[in-house]
């Protein structure tokens, strides 16, 4: 594995910090009851979205899930657009009609975050079909979780992608749990990258706590997809540091033995991906404490600004509630 240069590593670190601070801010806003609806934070899983999305070009298409903040931010989406949407304001990406689970930013080709588990994979087959039809050289990247690997659409889409040789990067973030159900209780073999192998798809299994490893593997897979015009699969083992979602009285519902299990898992997990990279960069003298603090301050400011704007922006007019159902 090649060593990544300092600017690449700094960029990966900054993006992960941006996501972490964004998620912590959303969590705080939720506690303060300043935003409605469920928030599905990706705290702890930053390395997988950053490592993959930073290996994509701006024009490569991204499709994500309800856990949509991290992948959108990693792809380069406007923080103001996202935060305004979380606040339900007219300046949000959907004018307040989508919310936290459905963030997108067409400027960076992050086209849809869909919350029905497994529903993004067929969509990815579609955008990839068009990319191939028009020889665009772009690819489609679709994120989903371990839970989705049991949906029919997962299997249908993997088969279709290999049979039709579609330029798709399938990214499975395996955090070993679907809401509160441990993966091991619903499948026999938790090496989910094997499922892609059974469709004769190029498939890799990666430690999701090491952003450099994620990034380099993603670069290799994406090059493969572009060169061969065939799909590839990445299973990225990650650790979700929080609950499935925050909000909608979830704390009361999730007050059971599972929570202790999760806390035990978090405590036993090797390292926070942000701490892991910054520690390694300290050791290699690629970063100083001052620079790290500066990054945190700058990113915190960006997010704070996004919140300020979102708080001040207006809600959409009431006629918007029924607009854009049809084109005409």
């Amino acid at each position, binding site marked *: 594995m090649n060593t990544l240069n300092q600017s690449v590593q700094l960029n990966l670190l900054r993006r992960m910090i941006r996501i972490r601070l964004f998620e912590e801010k959303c969590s705080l806003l939720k506690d303060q009851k300043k935003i409605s609806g469920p928030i599905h934070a990706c705290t702890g899983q930053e390395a997988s979205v950053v490592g993959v999305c930073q290996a994509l070009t701006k024009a490569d298409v991204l499709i994500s899930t309800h856990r949509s903040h991290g992948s959108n931010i990693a792809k380069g989406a406007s923080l103001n657009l996202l935060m305004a949407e979380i606040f339900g304001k007219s300046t949000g990406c959907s004018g307040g009609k989508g919310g936290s689970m459905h963030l997108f930013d067409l400027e960076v080709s992050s086209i849809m975050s869909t919350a029905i588990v497994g529903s993004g994979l*067929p969509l990815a087959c579609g955008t990839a079909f068009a990319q191939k039809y028009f020889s665009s050289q772009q690819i489609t990247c679709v994120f989903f979780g371990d839970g989705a690997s049991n949906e029919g659409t997962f299997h249908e889409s993997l088969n279709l992608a290999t049979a039709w040789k579609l330029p798709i990067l399938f990214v499975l973030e395996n955090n070993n749990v679907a809401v509160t159900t441990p993966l091991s209780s619903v499948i026999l073999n938790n090496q989910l990258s094997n499922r892609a192998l059974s469709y004769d798809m190029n498939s890799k299994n990666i430690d999701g706590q090491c952003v450099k490893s994620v990034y380099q593997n993603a670069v290799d897979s994406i090059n493969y997809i572009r060169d061969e015009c065939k799909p590839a699969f990445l299973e990225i083992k990650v650790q979700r540091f929080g609950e499935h979602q925050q909000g909608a009285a979830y704390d009361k519902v999730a007050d059971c033995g599972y929570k202790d299990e999760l806390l035990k898992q978090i405590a036993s997990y090797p390292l926070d991906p942000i701490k892991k990279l910054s520690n390694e960069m300290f050791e290699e003298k690629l970063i100083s404490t001052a620079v790290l603090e500066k990054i945190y301050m700058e990113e915190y400011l960006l997010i704070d600004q996004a919140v300020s704007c979102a708080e001040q922006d207006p809600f959409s007019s009431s006629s918007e509630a029924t607009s854009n159902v049809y084109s005409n």
Partner: protein
Amino acid sequence: MHTCSYGNAVREALHDEMLHNKNVVLMGQDIQSNVYGYTESLYDIFGAQRVINTPISEAAVLGTAVGSSLYGIIPIVDLTVASFLYISMDQIASIASKIRYMHNGKHNAQITILVWLLYGTSSASQHSDRPFSMIMNLPGIKSVAPASVQDAYSLIRSSVNDPDPVVVFLDRNLFYQKEVIIKSAAVKIGIPRLVKPGSMVTIVSISGAIKNSTIAVESLLSKGIDCELIDVRSLKPLDMSLIFESVKKTGFLVVNDLSSQVCSVAEHLIARCISQCFTHLKAPPLAFTYPDAHTPFSPYLESKLLANPEDIEEGILRLINN
């Protein structure tokens, strides 16, 4: 202008759209050598890149259609049988119907879904559904049900060119019906068809129910009862003006529908007419629908489910004589 069967009109509409725009792509099971003939020779003319035999993965194929439509493809998905809508339903309901709304207009899914109604062909319950209501109830999805050869041709073309997802319900029972068609006679989605003007009773007909409706209307005319026959041909949107005017003129509303009774298209249309034409009604509206039951295999048993022309005639006579 030429004579054409309903089945051939479908084929010609697909052909003409594919000729007109090279981004129109047809996807479906067994369409390269189609059992029924409605995609015949399209594969020879347009090739494997545009006439695609799909695996039996309706959900993935439907999602593929939506995704590709976001990047310049105009997909037509042939799901073959109306009952097969169910297995792709989440992609229709959660993705296709919502993608424009959820993104506040920044996306639209210009896709066309073709399905055939196989009731009346001894295909038993799993192949014989008429799920109009289920599709009509989804905001964001349009649907049409052409009941004439001209409309089969023109409405498919309008549907392919409509920027929103459109489900086209084609009736297998009309497959061999022949008519003269004029290709340039475009038909807009949402406008019903006045089949026969009349003054005494309004009959609104849905899809293949037009066959029995037409026979009943002729028989009633010979008895001096002049019915006005309207074929909706579109399910949603549907401009109700023609129907409201007709009901206000005649005072009697009869709806001949293929849906199962509960939440049927008939009940929906009747509710709207009562709401707009209440003071003009001389009798309660009359609906002919499938009962709340499935379709049996045996042709004898199946024949008991749909109103035949005698049932319709009898019902109308009772309606106007009371």
